[in-house]
C-alpha cells in the first residue's frame, strides 16, 4: 500500500468561562466518517450540567444522526468521580451512538482538566527536581485516592516513597 491515509480524525475539546458561575465545554469531532459537536453548560460551584446540546452534521450511521436528542437526559448530573458510570447508564444504552456518549465524557474531562491546569498554574514553580517531587508527594498525601492510580503514584515511584496508607485512615 502507499502513504495515503485511510482514516483521519481530529478532535478538539475546549472549555470556556461564560461568567463567574458558568463554564461551557465543547467537543468537536471531525473525521473521515463523522462530523459532530457536543456542548455542555456547567454551573459552578456544583459542577452541575445544566444544559447539553449535540449536533451531528454528518454520519453514515443512522443511530448517530438520530441520537443527539437523548443527550438531554444527563442534565442535572454533576461532574466528578463516578460520573462516567452515571452518564453511560443514563444515555449509553438508549443513544446507540457511542461516539456522542464519548464526546459528552470528553467535555466533562475537559472541565476537570481546566481546574487541574488552574491549580498547576497557581502552584509555586519548583526550582529543581527535588522541589517538584516534594510538591507531588504532598499532593498524594493530601489525596489518598491518587495513590496507585497511575504509574507516577504507584509503589516504587519516588513520589510515594515511605507512603503509608494507614496514616491516612
Amino acid at each position, binding site marked *: *500500500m502507499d502513504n*495515503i*491515509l*485511510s*482514516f*483521519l*480524525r*481530529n*478532535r478538539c475539546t475546549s*472549555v*470556556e*468561562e461564560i461568567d463567574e458561575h458558568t463554564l461551557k465545554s465543547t467537543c468537536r469531532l471531525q*473525521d*473521515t*466518517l463523522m462530523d459532530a459537536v457536543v456542548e455542555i453548560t456547567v454551573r*459552578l460551584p*456544583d*459542577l452541575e450540567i445544566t444544559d447539553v446540546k449535540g449536533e451531528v452534521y454528518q454520519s*453514515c450511521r443512522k443511530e448517530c444522526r438520530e441520537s443527539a436528542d437523548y443527550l438531554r437526559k444527563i442534565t*442535572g*448530573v454533576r461532574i*466528578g*468521580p*463516578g460520573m462516567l458510570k*452515571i452518564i453511560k*447508564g*443514563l444515555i449509553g*444504552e*438508549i443513544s*446507540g451512538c457511542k461516539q456522542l456518549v*464519548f464526546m459528552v465524557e*470528553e467535555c466533562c*474531562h*475537559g472541565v476537570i*482538566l*481546566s*481546574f*487541574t*491546569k*488552574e*491549580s*498547576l498554574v*497557581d502552584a509555586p514553580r519548583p526550582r529543581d*527536581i527535588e522541589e*517538584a*517531587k516534594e510538591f*507531588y508527594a504532598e499532593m498524594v498525601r*493530601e*489525596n489518598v*485516592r491518587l495513590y496507585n*492510580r*497511575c*504509574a*507516577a503514584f504507584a509503589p*516504587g515511584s*519516588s*513520589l510515594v516513597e515511605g507512603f503509608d*496508607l*494507614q496514616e491516612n*485512615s
Partner: protein
Amino acid sequence: MHKYSRNKLISVRREDKNTLIVHGVLDDDIYGIEQNVRISIPDLEVLEINGKWNRWTTPECPRAIPVLQEAVGFRIEEEGFSGKVHKIIGRKACRHHANLLLECCYSAKEAALIAKWEDKKAENKGLTFKDFINGETKNTAPALVERPVSAGRDFVQRDEVKKKSFNKNEERGTIIDLHMHSSPASPCSSVPVDQLIYDAKSIGLDGICLTDHNYVWDKDVVDELRQKHEFIILRGNEITTNQGDMLVFGLYKDIQGIIRLEDLRKEVDKAGGFIIVAHPFRGFLVFNVGELGLTPEKAMERPLFKYVDAVEVLNGKVTEKENSFALKVAEGLGLPVTGGSDAHEVSEVGTYATMFPVSVKDENDLINALKTGNYSPIAFKKEREKIKR
C-alpha cells in the same frame, strides 16, 4: 478566552492487507503525548505500541511508558475493551495515555471498516460505504430502553429522624462497618467475602454490612456466612443513581443501570427501608474549594438531600477535608450521620464504622436503629483502643 483546550489528531494508514498503522497525537494545555500503534485488521488486535511524552507533569510520569506494553494483545472488539484500557493503561500507566490509546484504537476500528469496504468493493464495484456499513450493522442495532421519568419533587414524606447526642461513655452498643465491598460481587474489590469477614472480626468490629454495587445478596447465602463465621453480617446495597451513590438498606430488589434518586426513594419507602448518601463530596475538593466557591450552605441546597435519610460523613476512600465538609452539610440540614470504610482491600476494613447505642443483631434491628437517628460515626481503627469493651 479558553480556560483549557485539548487537541487530538489521529491518522491511520493501511500498511498491508492485514495491518493498520495508527499515529496519535494529544496536545493540551498540560500534556503532550504521542503514540504509534500497529493493529491487525481481521481481528482488531493491538500488535505493537510505542508511546512517548513530549510534555508531562510529575517527575515520575515517564514510568508510564513501559506499562503501555500491557495493551499489546488487547482486542478492540472484545467485551469490556474500553474498561480494560481504563483499568490497566489508565490506572497502571496514565489516564491521558489511556485516553489517547482509546482514540487510536477506535480510529483503527473505523479504518478497518473502511478497509473491509474497499476489499468488498473490489468484487462489487457499485457498493457504497453507506450500503456496506448498513449491511454490516443491520443486526446489531441497540435496543431502545426507556427509563420511566418520575414527576420530580413529589417525594414521599418520611418519618422525621432526629439527631440525638450519643454519650460515648455509655455502655457501648454495636459497632458496624456500614459500607464495604467484596469480590466478586463488586468487580472493583479485591477481597473475597470470607476474608472480609475474617478481618472485620479480628479487628474487633461487631458486625458488617455488605454493600456491593447494585448487588442483592441472597438471604440464604448470608445466613450461611453468619453461621459459619459466628458474626453479624447484614445486607445493604450501594446503588448508583443520577445523583451519585446511595447506600440502601431494607430494599432487596435488584436494580441495574442508573436509577433516578426520586424513583429509588419511592422504592425504598415502599419497602420501609433507609437511604444514606455515600461519600457525597468525593473528589470535589481535589480542585481547590476556594476556586469553586462551594460552601456548606450552597451544598445544602442540593436537591439530593431531600431524598436521603442520612449522610455518610466518615468514608475511608475520601479525604479528611471531604469528610468534614460532608459533616458540616449534614449538621446544617439536621440529618443523621454515619461512617463506613468503603473497603475494597483487606487493609481498609473498619477504618470507619458506625456506633449504635442499641444492640443490632439483624437487618430489622438495623433499619429500626437507623431510623432513630441516634448513632455516630467513628474512626474505628484509630479509636478502638479507647472504646470500652
